[in-house]
Each structure stands twice: as C-alpha cells, then as structure tokens.
C-alpha cells in the first residue's frame, strides 16, 4: 500500500548524512573521551562543509520527499548554506574558547551539529508537523548549549530562561497549528495554500486565529518585538561563542521558516499577515534602536542590535514579493557575516586570562591593538549601515523593496531608527579611537579567531566590489519560493 523507494530519499541526503555523521562522531567521543574534543569539533566543521556541498548537488526546483513533508528548493539551498556557514564559523570560534575556559567537552560540537540539523529540517519543512519537529530539534540543542557552562550561575539562568520561554512559544505555535489543521483539514503547506486560496467565502476565522498564533510563535524564535524579552538575558548569560551562534544560524533558520510559512501556505492571506509583520518589524526596529543606547555590556548591546536587525530583515517580508524576499536574503547573509565577525572581536576581549564584556573595556583599543580596533570599527560602521560597507546594501535592498510595495511609512521609520541605532554603534568606535587607553587586552588572540575576523571583515569591506553573485543567488532563491 505504500511503495518505498530508496532513491526517493535523495533530496534529504544531506540531512541523512548529517544525522548519521553525528551519531558516528558521538560514538568516537564516547570511546575516546574528552581528549578527542578538538578532533570531533573539526570533524563537525568538515561535516558542515560536506553537507553544504551535498545540498548544492541534490536539490532541484522544489523536489519533495518523505511523502511531501520535506522540500528541497532553491530557497532551501540558499538558507541552508547560510545557516551551515554561520554554524561552522561559530563552532570554529568556540574551540579555543572552550579549551581556555576549561569547559571543552566532546558533546559540545555534537550539539552544534544536531542544532544545525534541526535548522536544515526547519528550512526544508513542507508540513506543519515537519516544521515543529525540526524546530524542537534545534531548540532543544540550543537550550542545552546556552546552559553549557553549568557551574556559572548566569549561564544556567540563561538556559533555564530560554527553555521556559521557548516552551511557551512552542505551545503557542502548536495551538496555532491545531487551529489551522482543524479549520483547513490539512497540515501540508502546498495543500493548505490550495485550500485557503480556493475558498470562495473567504478564509475561516479559525485559520486566522491559528495564523496569529503561528506568527507569534515564530516571532519568538526570531526574537522579534513583542516576543523578544528572553534575548538580552540569554545573550548575556550564555558563553560568548554560543551567543555568536545564537545570533547567526538559528536566526537564519527561523527567518527562513517565517518566510516560507507566510509566503507558502498562507500566501493567500497576505493582507492579513502583512499587518502583523509590519507591526512586528516596526516595533523591533524601534526597540533595537532605543533600548540599546543605555547598555554598558557589549553582549547585551549585541542582543538589542540583533532585535533591530531582525526588524530590518522583516521589512523585506512585509513587502511580500520577490524583491522583498530577495532583499531579506541579502540582509540575512550580510547580518551573519557582521554578527560572527563582531562576536569574534568580542571573544578577543580578554584580560588576565578572563573575559571582559564592558564597552568601557574597549577604550583606547586603537592604540593598544590597532588591527583589532580597525576590524571592530568596520563591523560597527557596517551594522550602522554606512556606505560602502556591506551593511548598507542589506538595508538598501529591503527599504527599496518596501518602497516599491508602497510601504512608505515602514521605510521612513526604518531609516529614522537606523539613524538612532548608528549612535550606539559609533559610540563604540569613539570609545576605541578617542578615549584614554585602558589596560591592554591580552595578545595574541589565536590563529582561528584572526582568520574568522579577517575573513568576515574582508567580506564586509569588499562586498561593494563584487556584489553580483550574492544578489543573483538571493534573487534565484527568492524566485524559487514563489514557484517561478
């Protein structure tokens, strides 16, 4: 009654490869003990690279497998490779950190691997249930790595807080899904789209209620206002490489999910969800700009900054067309590069063998460590959106899409809030370049960190020279989402 064919699973080959490699590496770790941590970490990075390669090979225009629950299309390829890059860079940064802090254990890279696998499944979800299990796989790993430094009170607090609020958001998501299933009679994304767009009497109220709850649950995962409360505490408490990871890869996956759910199954309800996205985007931009001004801890500042960035990215979704989604993809790519680079700089903030996290600790960095100060300044200028750095292009494309879609208010408020946000980015530059030097930070910073900072800084600086591949890649991915 159900024909099974191994070849039909080929679209999910990268994910299957990842899951099996994770189990093999887990066994290696169990038998070789914690001295294999370094080897397992690099092996996981290698798995990420191989998976990224496999992804580009197996997917075509919207291939379905697992009875239609899993989709591998151009959009998935783009987002998955972005998430893999973010995870790999964050993992590379964590190796040295964990060894210095004496918390290196082989489970850490394994948890990164399964979190990333969860992201892959989220991005490829073509069914509400598949969405949910992928999300839970990712979230469960994230809760554990947030509390990974278990002897540290703040890390435990971060893990617990993230867990409780994450469970709440999962509950909202599930409630919304059950409403949608109850009123539409299906959980498949493509069937949902047909059902919702074909009904003559309009969309049932139950589906609308479900949509609101699903949007709320997903807004929680991308930490958009008004569901952002967990972000500053979790970012501050979690170990710094974990924070870098949180700011990059899960954001990419959750944004991809939000875009896929809104454009795909609920595409016919554009008028309804556009209001929600516009509000969430406005509120996130405003909060990200104003709440960060008063922060003295750089990780908290980055948390508010990430809330703001999600607001800008959602401007692209609010436009709801190919240009908007393409702009969102460009924005997320640039955001991942900037975010990882900034956190790599933060990881260099060590004094007497301990991490320091205050903005005042950076004062006079330009004189004590000019190269690091220069890289930090590049990231800060880019985050503020000052041309010709990469951050400017991200903002430019989303605002352009918003204006083309007639969302003038959103674009104007976005530009205004980015001016306000520029204040606190530039304040860091001012502290580094014009304040009296504090005690010098520890040197050397380590080869891997130098490479990560160098690579992301060059990307941010030189994107203006050849933005073509990124723009065309994002455009292709966006078109594939609209079934063209």
């Amino acid at each position, binding site marked *: *009654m*159900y024909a*099974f064919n191994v070849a039909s699973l080929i679209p*999910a080959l990268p994910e299957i490869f990842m*899951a099996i490699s994770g*189990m093999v590496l*887990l066994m290696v770790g169990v038998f070789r003990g914690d001295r294999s941590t370094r080897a397992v970490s690099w092996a996981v990075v290698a798995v990420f690279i191989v998976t990224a390669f496999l992804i580009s090979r197996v997917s075509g225009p919207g291939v379905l497998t*697992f*009875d239609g*629950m*899993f989709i591998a299309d151009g959009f998935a390829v783009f987002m998955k490779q972005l998430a893999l890059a973010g995870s790999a860079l964050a993992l590379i940064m964590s190796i040295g950190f964990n060894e210095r802090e004496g918390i290196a*254990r082989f*489970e*850490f890279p*394994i*948890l990164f691997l*399964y979190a990333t*696998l969860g992201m892959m*499944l989220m991005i490829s979800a073509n069914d509400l*249930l*598949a969405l949910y*299990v*992928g999300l*839970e*796989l990712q979230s*469960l*790993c994230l*809760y*554990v790595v947030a*509390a*990974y430094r*278990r002897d540290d009170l703040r890390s435990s607090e971060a*893990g617990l807080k993230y867990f409780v609020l994450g469970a709440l958001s999962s509950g909202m998501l599930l409630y919304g899904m059950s409403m949608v299933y109850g009123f539409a009679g299906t959980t498949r994304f493509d069937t949902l789209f047909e059902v919702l767009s074909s009904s003559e009497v309009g969309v049932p109220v139950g589906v609308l209620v479900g949509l609101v709850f699903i949007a709320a649950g997903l807004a929680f995962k991308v930490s958009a206002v008004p569901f952002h409360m967990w972000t500053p505490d979790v970012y501050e408490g979690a170990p710094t490489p974990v924070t870098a990871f949180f700011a990059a890869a899960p954001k990419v996956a959750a944004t991809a999910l939000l875009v896929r759910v809104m454009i795909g199954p609920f595409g016919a309800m554009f008028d309804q969800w556009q209001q929600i996205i516009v509000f969430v985007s406005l509120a996130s931009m405003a909060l990200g700009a104003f709440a960060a001004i008063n922060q003295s801890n750089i990780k908290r500042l980055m948390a508010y900054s990430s809330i703001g960035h999600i607001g800008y990215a959602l401007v692209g979704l609010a436009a709801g067309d190919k240009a908007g989604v393409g702009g969102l993809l460009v924005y997320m790519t640039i955001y991942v590069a900037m975010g990882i680079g900034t956190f790599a700089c933060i990881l260099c903030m060590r004094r007497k063998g301990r991490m320091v996290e205050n903005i005042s600790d950076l004062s006079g960095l330009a004189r004590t460590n000019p190269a690091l100060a220069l890289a930090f300044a590049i990231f800060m200028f880019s985050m503020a959106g000052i041309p010709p750095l990469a951050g400017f292009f991200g903002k430019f494309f989303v605002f352009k899409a918003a204006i083309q879609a007639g969302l003038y208010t959103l674009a104007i408020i976005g530009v205004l809030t980015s001016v306000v946000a520029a204040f606190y980015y530039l304040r860091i530059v001012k502290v580094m370049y014009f304040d009296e030097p504090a005690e010098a930070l520890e040197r050397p910073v380590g080869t891997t960190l130098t490479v990560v900072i160098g690579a992301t800084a060059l990307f941010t600086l030189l994107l203006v020279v050849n933005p073509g591949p990124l723009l065309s890649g994002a455009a292709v991915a966006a078109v594939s989402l609209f079934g063209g």
Partner: protein
Amino acid sequence: MIIYAIAFYLFAAVAVASGTMVVAARNPVHSVLFLILAFFNAAALFVLMGAEFLAMVLIIVYVGAVAVLFLFVVMMLDINFAELRQGFMRYLPVGALIGLVLLAELILIGGTWVFSPDAEIAISDKFYMSGEVTNAHALGLVLYTKYAYLFQTAGLVLLVAMIGAIVLTFRSRPGVRRQKISAQVGRRVEDSVELRKVKSREGV
C-alpha cells in the same frame, strides 16, 4: 450488550469517585494512589471503546511514569499539605462557580455537536473496523510509512534530550571505585585461592 453497559457504568463510576478522592483525600500519598485508580478506570473505558492501544499507552505512560513521578515528588518534598489546604472553604464558592461554568460550556458544546459526513465514512471504514487490524497495527501502518520522517526526527529529538541531560548533569568524580565486570569475570582460582598445608597445632 447488558454486560457492556454494566461495565461502562462500573468503570465510569469508579473513575469519577476516585477523581473526587484525589481532591478529598487527606494524605497526599492516598491522593496519588487514587489518581492511579482513576487512570486504570479511564484505560478500561478506552478498552470498552475498542481503543486498546490507547488504553495500554495510558497505563504505561501515566501510571508507569507520571504517577510514579508524582509519588516520588510527594514523598521527597517536605510540603505541609494541611497548610496548603487552609482556606479551602473560603475558595469553595469561586471554585464551584468555575466548575459550573465549565460544565455549562461542555453541555453547550455537546448539544450543538454536528458530525461531518466524512466522519461517518471514516468510522465505517471496513479496513480499520473489521477487527482484523488491531489499533497498534493500524498505527504502525502509517507511523512507519507515511510519517516515517516525523518518527525518525522525533527519535533524534530524544537522542538530543539524552545527550543534553548527560552534558548538564553528569560529573565524573575522582576516587570513585567502580565495578569492573571484566576483572570480576576474568578472575581465576589461582589469583585468589591459595592452598596451604597446615600442620596440626600451628597457625598459617
């Protein structure tokens, strides 16, 4: 049919009565035991409805895991239940009012319930209702084929939960003597038993 009715009323009455006793019992351990009784009767009701798989799962999960967990918590935590119960009479009117509202809502829902025509077709499906296919079999037919993806991913979630629990709680303490089964099994007579000639009136 009469036996069916008798069984239903018996199990239903015991379930309601034990539910009341969960709230009313003075000793919290008794409350948990009544809760287990309520679970068993609910499972019996499921059996009467032909949902034997659900009945077994209810017993395994709720009695085997949840109720035992409750029992542990009740026994291990030093909670003064007499103190918690103070003000019971004061809150009784509010509680009763909420209960009545809930009951009214249930009646309203039940009274206006309309079955979709599809449901009747599904119920009369020969394949699942012939009795030849058991619940577990019917579930397995879709769980391992149509929903294999979700099944496998749920397995991965459980694997991560296991890794996470170990990462967050396991500490290797130095100086703990562990059982070495290979050493125990590999022990030979010569290693531990020594035969000596003992002369009479002399010690070893």
